[in-house]
């Protein structure tokens, strides 16, 4: 226990005694908390701008952050701080245009439009925004607490009880599950995963001659991680957005116009008591769903909203608005659920090294670029008396998340309510500029036009995937997990003396493999 407390304390110290960003009245201001604030405000602004999303801001900011803080382990916490800030801010900011203009700023804020916008049209936009912020931050905080408890526990269990064959089977299960649950069909999910695996295997291997390069020298080291991930995830989305905007030149934008009489526009007496049970249920639903890799916040919001709708219909008084007509409970249910996903999404990435969503992908990308931190079960080794620096970083990340929540509780709401103006920035300007920004960010990191061409090619893959209904996140997750999977399988095969059935050598690995096959087989019949 004292070891645990010691590491928690070291994590807190790493945040507050890390590199200084500037000096104020002779006192050095630590970079990491300031970066959380910067990331949070950026994230809220990005979330409040329809057409932009947290991952885009993460993609553009990563090379700048690395240039500022360098490639030393000292850079990890400030860089993670900014990325975590964006993740938290974007989740809150997405509600702004959803409520004010009936346009979800992020896909997971879609359900917020159902009650948030009617409440705004009824003359209470400020009340709707405050309920959204309160619910979102509560859900996020709850989910973070679950992460702080579960991630170390899960990692210790994995490290203690799983050997190489079981770890290989667990990676196969994760990839199969992601393929099965994401997108419209299991076949398309598997296609995405298969292509992600194949792309990651290009130019790698253990022999002196790199494999699958087709004679192209530039591929000898494989596809650059940044180029492949940003191409599929960000550029593909931008390409699709540009095409859609070209076809919707005259699309009218909804305005926030109050239809009814002017009402008192702030939290009302009894609001918090009314929404509290809905927030609590939705936070639990969002956290459970978020802990499963690949299952997105949209599902959490939809499920929470429909359950809350049933409960509300059974208990509603006649003078209270129904769901879909501006019910505060509706806003609370969706916002608490979709924000609760974000913290829990980091459980698989921190404890197992398995990214479950785009934000987790960027944390892995940052860790990979900087070095000195490899998310996975080995992080949570409580060594004494020598210090495990990765564990200190992990508790530093938890500290940063707590700072992010604190800032979100205090200044997040005020900043969020001033962001309505961003919903009016036209996508016709935004998308080409974000495209150029992303390409520039990739170039300054890779310093090669070859990386730009590779990014563009992966962007085309991302566009085609979106057009034919193939989900993109399984591709990215498989691309990241492919090399650890191959390495673990090689070691497991060698360690078992070349046993071809090593994946079925213990009850645990058999269970994982059965679950992997079952997830694909059962979900393809739904």
């Amino acid at each position, binding site marked *: 226990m004292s070891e645990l407390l010691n590491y928690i304390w070291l994590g807190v110290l790493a945040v507050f005694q890390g590199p200084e960003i500037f000096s104020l009245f002779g006192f050095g201001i630590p970079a990491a908390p300031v970066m959380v604030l910067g990331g949070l405000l950026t994230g809220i602004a990005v979330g409040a701008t329809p057409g932009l999303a947290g991952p885009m801001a993460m993609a553009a900011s990563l090379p700048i952050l690395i240039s500022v803080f360098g490639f030393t382990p000292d850079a990890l916490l400030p860089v993670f701080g900014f990325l975590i800030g964006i993740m938290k801010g974007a989740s809150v900011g997405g509600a702004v245009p959803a409520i004010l203009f009936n346009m979800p700023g992020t896909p997971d804020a879609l359900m917020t439009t159902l009650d948030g916008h009617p409440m705004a049209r009824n003359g209470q936009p400020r009340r709707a925004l405050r309920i959204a912020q309160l619910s979102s931050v509560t859900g996020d905080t709850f989910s973070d607490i679950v992460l702080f408890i579960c991630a170390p526990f899960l990692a210790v269990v994995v490290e203690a009880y799983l050997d190489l064959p079981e770890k290989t089977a667990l990676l196969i299960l994760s990839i199969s599950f992601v393929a099965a649950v994401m997108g*419209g069909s299991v076949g398309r999910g598997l296609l995405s995963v298969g292509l992600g695996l194949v792309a990651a295997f290009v130019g790698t291997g253990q022999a002196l001659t790199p494999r699958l390069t087709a004679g192209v020298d530039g591929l000898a080291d494989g596809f650059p991680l940044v180029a492949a991930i940003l191409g599929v995830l960000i550029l593909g989305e931008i390409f699709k957005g540009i095409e859609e905007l070209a076809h919707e030149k005259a699309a009218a934008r909804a305005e926030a116009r109050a239809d009814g009489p002017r009402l008192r526009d702030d939290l009302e007496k009894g609001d918090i008591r009314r929404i509290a049970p809905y927030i609590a249920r939705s936070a639990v639903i969002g956290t459970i769903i978020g802990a499963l890799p690949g299952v997105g916040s949209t599902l959490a919001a939809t499920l929470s909203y429909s359950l809350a709708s049933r409960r509300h219909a059974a208990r509603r008084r006649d003078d209270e608005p129904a769901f879909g007509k501006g019910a505060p409970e509706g806003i609370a249910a969706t916002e608490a659920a979709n924000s609760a996903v974000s913290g829990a999404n980091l459980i698989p990435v921190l404890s197992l090294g398995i990214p479950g969503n785009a934000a987790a992908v960027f944390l892995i990308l940052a860790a990979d670029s900087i070095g000195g931190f490899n998310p996975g079960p080995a992080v949570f080794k409580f060594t004494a008396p020598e210090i495990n620096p990765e564990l200190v970083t992990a508790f530093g990340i938890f500290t940063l998340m707590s700072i992010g929540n604190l800032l979100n509780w205090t200044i997040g709401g005020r900043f969020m309510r001033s962001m309505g103006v961003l919903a009016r920035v036209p996508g016709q300007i935004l998308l080409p500029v974000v495209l150029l920004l992303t390409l520039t960010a990739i170039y300054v990191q890779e310093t090669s036009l070859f990386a730009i061409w590779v990014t563009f090619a992966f962007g085309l893959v991302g566009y085609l995937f979106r057009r034919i209904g193939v989900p993109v996140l399984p591709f990215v997750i498989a691309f990241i997990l492919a090399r650890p999977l191959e390495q673990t399988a090689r070691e497991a095969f060698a360690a078992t003396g070349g046993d071809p059935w090593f994946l079925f050598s213990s009850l645990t690995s058999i269970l994982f493999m059965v679950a992997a096959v079952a997830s694909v087989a059962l979900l393809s019949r739904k």
Partner: protein
Amino acid sequence: MSRNKADLILGGLVVVLALLAILAWVPNDSATGMIVKQRGRLLIGDAMAPVVGFSVVALAGLLIIVEKRKAGLSAALSPSNLRFLLLFIGIFVLSILLMRWSGPALVTLAKAAGLTDHTYRDLRDTIPWKYTGFIIGGTTLVTLLMSYMAGRVTWRAVLIGLLATFALIAVFDLPFPDLLLPPNGDT
């Protein structure tokens, strides 16, 4: 093209390409086979992982052929999608080529006019040469994409393209002298 037919073609194409890769590409482009024996020990070779990857792709193709589709899911690209793709690839390639070569081309012109004795490589760390390719290529990209979306070329699009490149220079180049804007890492 009906949705069923599109799925059938997509699934069939995926299966055929995956089998071709397993039977022809992987064996000819991997230094070791699926299993290798080194110093008496059996080890997984370099061909194993790609074969497994392509097998997953082939399985996915089969599933796409047989599984029921959800409403709204189609493997068909419309002619409008293809037109967009061609135009978009054209705009992108033109912009990146301008980004890469306009700086060296301008230096060659300046040299021919007797304004400088240097090559672009000598000048790529000096203003204004270090920005020429980025400004010309970046402005072209933003302007052409904005014009495509608006259906006409406007001076406003050119201005926004210029402002965007200047803003990116201010963000990436002015505060960080060690960062290289495109194309200066390649020249």
